[in-house]
């Protein structure tokens, strides 16, 4: 026990103790000692990305698809600033990450040293917490704290900044089994009286809706949510972050709600009398204008682990602070124990109304089109993968179509940047997903604009033989920007046309992958089938799609949920 280890050794030992099998990173001066220790062992595998942003997105995809803490390792200065976009992405979507960054030696901090930035300062607003370790004797404890904070309560990224001299200094190593912090004690169990109130309100509902968000996914509560929805025969709508929390192919699913949600989901949300919000936060892309939303009277139950998410944008009647999984279990137990059932006649009427809204067929599009419709590509992808693939996406129209047309029945299958809306997220995230699920089918739905923001990762995919299927919906525009310009800026397409695109087939081939260009609707299905047959290879599918297609329904910014633009 008296053997002393260097800070670098301790760092790696801590990762091993945490059961980390795979980290993503990029070496540099300040982390050389840590890389040296990585080199000497084989328990923790390191994936070398081509840009630090991708390291964080990959760790993020790894975490989202596996419910483990994602880990990334970057150097000081530009290593950190490149990572910031990834960290902010994870922060907005509450993804547990531990980011280890190198820092200049403690003696050089504050002296504008080479590759020095104030890492703790730069990342402070976009991490759950961060640490600068100035003393090697505090390193193990700090890393333990980082994993604990990242993965408990409302999860989030935690950064540990390690100066180069600290990684070199020696101390005795003992990894703490447990950590307690007087200033951090996240609540998990919901208040029983509040849960009882919620149960009473649920039983009194005549026009109920269950509105489920990313919290259901994060707390692994999809089975409980499904049980609750089905035992009550209530309609359920999922947010962009919550897709897969309730099976989308089930008849009680109203699909996604919000700015590009279905007509039936948004109408039900607006006109319900009891709303059960589960791990969701009423954000601006979900409820539209909060004033318009509050025009209708409804009682709201809100289950969330983060008290600051409750009554932030919408006043709620029954707040329940707690882990979604715990609270749902309690709620189900209570409802089962009681004899009362919801008013079946009223529910029948409500479902009748919902069916009328459904008949509006809000997701219809021209299926006879001679040009490839992006929606059709996703529908085919869904049927060919039997709905069982991991789908990552970038940000824009393709993301919304993926959310609308790929019917997620399972949690942790839909990986996207919902909060921050980070273009460039899709492919690196897919790398992390594939590494966490080596046997899984992983597809990245993207567009020609987004994919170019992290295109360099095609090289990483080659190095580690990651057989991703890239579905590039190529409409030669930043589609969502173009759509807003068409609707709200008089068709003036300022800088949204993607000129001088590369030949994606040749590009993929130059990285050693398979490229395909698909230009006719009748070729879509066979191309997808062929691509998925190439089990060991990354296939870049460049679908040349309709340039004028728009995402419908759409709730314009500042409008109410029921004020949708429909096709």
């Amino acid at each position, binding site marked *: 026990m008296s053997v002393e280890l260097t800070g670098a050794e301790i760092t790696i030992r801590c990762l091993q103790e945490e059961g980390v099998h795979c980290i993503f990173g990029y070496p540099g001066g300040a982390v050389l000692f840590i890389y040296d220790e990585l080199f000497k062992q084989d328990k923790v595998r390191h994936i070398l990305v081509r840009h630090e942003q991708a390291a964080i997105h990959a760790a993020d995809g790894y975490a989202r698809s596996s419910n483990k803490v994602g880990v990334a390792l970057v150097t000081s200065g530009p290593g950190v600033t490149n990572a910031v976009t990834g960290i902010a992405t994870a922060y907005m979507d509450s993804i547990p990450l531990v980011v280890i960054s190198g820092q200049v030696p403690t003696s050089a901090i504050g002296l504008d040293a080479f590759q020095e930035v104030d890492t703790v300062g730069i990342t402070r607003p976009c991490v759950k917490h961060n640490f*600068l370790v100035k003393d090697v004797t505090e390193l193990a404890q700090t890393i333990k704290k980082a994993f604990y904070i990242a993965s408990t309560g409302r999860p989030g990224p935690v950064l540990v900044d390690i100066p180069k001299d600290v990684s070199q200094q020696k101390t005795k190593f003992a990894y703490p089994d447990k950590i307690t*912090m007087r*200033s*951090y004690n996240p609540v998990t169990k919901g208040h029983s009286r509040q849960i009882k109130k919620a149960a009473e309100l649920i039983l009194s509902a005549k026009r109920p809706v269950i509105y489920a968000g990313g919290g259901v996914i994060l707390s692994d509560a999809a089975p409980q949510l499904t049980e609750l929805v089905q035992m009550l025969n209530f309609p359920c709508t999922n947010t962009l972050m919550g897709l897969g929390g309730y099976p989308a192919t089930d008849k009680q699913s109203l699909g996604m709600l919000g700015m590009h949600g279905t007509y039936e989901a948004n109408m039900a949300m607006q006109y319900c009398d009891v709303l059960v919000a589960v791990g969701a936060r009423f954000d601006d892309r979900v409820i539209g204008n909060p004033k318009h939303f509050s025009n209708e009277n409804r009682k709201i139950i809100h289950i969330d682990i983060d*008290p*600051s998410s409750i*009554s932030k944008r919408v006043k709620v009647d029954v707040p329940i602070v707690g882990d979604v999984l715990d609270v749902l279990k309690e709620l189900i137990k209570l409802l089962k124990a009681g004899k009362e059932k919801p008013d079946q006649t009223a529910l029948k009427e409500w479902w009748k109304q919902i069916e009328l809204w459904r008949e509006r067929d809000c997701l219809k599009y021209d299926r006879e089109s001679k040009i490839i419709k992006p929606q059709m590509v996703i529908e085919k992808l869904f049927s060919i993968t039997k709905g069982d693939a991991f789908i990552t996406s970038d940000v824009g129209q393709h993301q919304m179509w993926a959310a609308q047309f790929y019917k997620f029945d399972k949690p942790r299958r839909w990986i996207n940047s919902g909060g921050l809306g980070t273009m460039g997220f899709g492919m690196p995230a897919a790398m992390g997903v594939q590494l966490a699920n080596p046997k899984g089918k992983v597809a990245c739905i993207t567009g020609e604009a987004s994919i170019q923001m992290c295109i360099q990762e095609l090289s990483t995919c080659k190095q580690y033989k990651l057989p991703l299927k890239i579905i590039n919906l190529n409409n030669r525009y930043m589609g969502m920007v173009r759509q807003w310009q068409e609707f709200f800026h008089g068709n003036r397409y300022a800088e949204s046309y993607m000129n001088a695109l590369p030949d994606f087939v040749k590009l993929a081939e130059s990285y050693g992958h398979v490229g395909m260009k698909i230009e006719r609707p009748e070729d879509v299905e066979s191309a997808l089938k062929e691509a998925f047959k190439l089990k060991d290879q990354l296939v870049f599918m460049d679908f040349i799609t309709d340039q004028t297609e728009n995402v419908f329904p759409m709730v314009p910014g500042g409008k109410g949920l029921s004020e949708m633009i429909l096709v």
Partner: protein
Amino acid sequence: MENEAGALSRVAGLFSARGYNIESLTVAPTEDPTLSRMTLVTIGSDEVVEQVTKQLNKLIEVVKIIDLNEGNHIERELMLVKVRAIGSDREEIKRLVEIFRGCIVDVTDKSYTIELTGTSSKLDAFLEAVERNAVLETVRTGASGIGRGEWILKV
């Protein structure tokens, strides 16, 4: 809050990032040197103050937070003020300092430096009472607060 480097900037950063106002802020270590106590004065509607409280609670280094306005409390601020004091003004200012229960802590033949403690409005009142162009320099700490009675804020 934990007496750690960077804790203050987390609080200050939270206020600027979320668009809340800091009217004043005082902070110093407590009798337990691992803890600092901060008194922060902000103005906002009940909803805003509720959000501020919740957001502050989320900061890992914040151990406990109370809204002193929810009960009776004592609030004090310290001000050091340098005033011009020449001729007959010297007596007049001395009397004023007595009335406000302050004390003169430094003297030159042209000026007094006065120490004054009280609620922020008392300090304002003193400055009003002194002739405006007699005030040469002021420094104020911002309010520190503590609850009345036997109830204590303890970790």
